[in-house]
């Protein structure tokens, strides 16, 4: 718990991260609110959530290794897996916090335009789940890549899947769709619990993907040699 609190405070209090963890999400909240006011169909929500996730993972494991914080932290009696999972939890909670602020702004804008939001709690859960999923992927990438390499790899893969999807035939389209699902783990309350019977595969898929990425992160990080901390 103490590791989580330390990592969480690092994300919201260090001046070096304020620009990314405060200004970037505040800008994203403003833009998403404005888009909601201007268009009935705003851009894909998963993509719109990316700034919040970026804010949460600014202090990547790779960046902490480069800065010397990681070796220092691992001199404490903490397991590698506790560090990785605490890193994910701290990043995800920051991202989720901003995503929920963004949702509140969007609801306010929609209300001002005379359009209500059906089941706002469901939207809140959707966004929280997407943020937690994206953060798990980026945490995994950051265990081996230095500094902002995890963001670069994520965006590159997303771009390659998107470009390939435009020209893919019926055979490869489902493969690319699965690749996108794995890269961007999603969970939609409406499509899962508003069906008869409940679509349990959506929930199981989300849990499998997030736990899979976290397991992958733990496995990658356990073999990483860090100065002063190797057993």
């Amino acid at each position, binding site marked *: 718990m103490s590791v989580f609190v330390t990592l969480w405070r690092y994300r919201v209090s260090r001046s070096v991260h304020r620009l990314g963890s405060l200004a970037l999400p505040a800008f994203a909240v403003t833009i998403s609110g404005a888009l909601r006011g201007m268009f*009935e*169909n*705003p851009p894909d929500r998963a993509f719109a959530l990316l700034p919040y996730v970026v804010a949460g993972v600014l202090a990547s494991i790779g960046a902490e290794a480069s800065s010397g914080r990681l070796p220092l932290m691992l001199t404490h009696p903490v397991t590698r897996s506790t560090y990785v999972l605490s890193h994910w939890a701290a990043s995800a909670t920051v991202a989720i916090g901003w995503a929920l602020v963004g949702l509140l702004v969007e609801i306010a804008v929609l209300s001002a335009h*005379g359009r209500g939001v059906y089941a706002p709690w469901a939207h809140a859960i959707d966004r929280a789940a997407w943020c937690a999923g994206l953060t798990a992927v980026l945490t995994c990438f950051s265990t081996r890549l230095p500094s902002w390499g995890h963001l670069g790899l994520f965006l590159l893969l997303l771009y390659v899947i998107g470009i390939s999807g435009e020209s*893919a035939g019926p055979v490869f389209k489902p493969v690319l769709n699965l690749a996108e699902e794995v890269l961007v783990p999603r969970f939609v309350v*409406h499509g899962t619990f508003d*069906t008869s019977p409940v679509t349990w595969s959506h929930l199981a898929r989300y849990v*499998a993907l997030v736990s899979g990425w*976290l397991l992958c992160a733990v496995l990658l990080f356990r073999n990483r040699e860090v100065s002063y901390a190797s057993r």
Partner: protein
Amino acid sequence: MPRAEGSTRAVPRWLVGVFCVSLAGWGTAAGLERASPPVLQSRVKWVPLAQVPADERPVLYVFTADWCAPCQDQDATFQDEALTEAIHRRVIPVRLVDRTHEDGENAAELAALIKRYEVTGFPTLVIQPREGNPLILRGFQRTDVLLGFVDR
């Protein structure tokens, strides 16, 4: 490579367990749902495309997709009691789910309708009278707009 109990590099067993159980659950549930697909609960009694009756009422086609966020908001508007009543009274509602993203292609009947009404985004709503030109609304529509659309 297994590590000694208490090693700082041990992999938590609970995480491995959660991953394995959820992966097995995903595979099992997906297989069962493919055999018997879950049906969206809605106030509107959607008519399957193959069972559209031949009467005087026009057909309301609602083109949607599982991945589409505005479509979820659109589905929510169909919970409105006044709108539901108007739909059942004035049109034959048919909900059509695009599967291009998931399966690579749609069934031939659905693909033909998508081509005929030039559906390029979701949701798209079409009222097709028995004779005459269709009325088409593209993108999310509020309940009051839909009421006016159905009551024309």
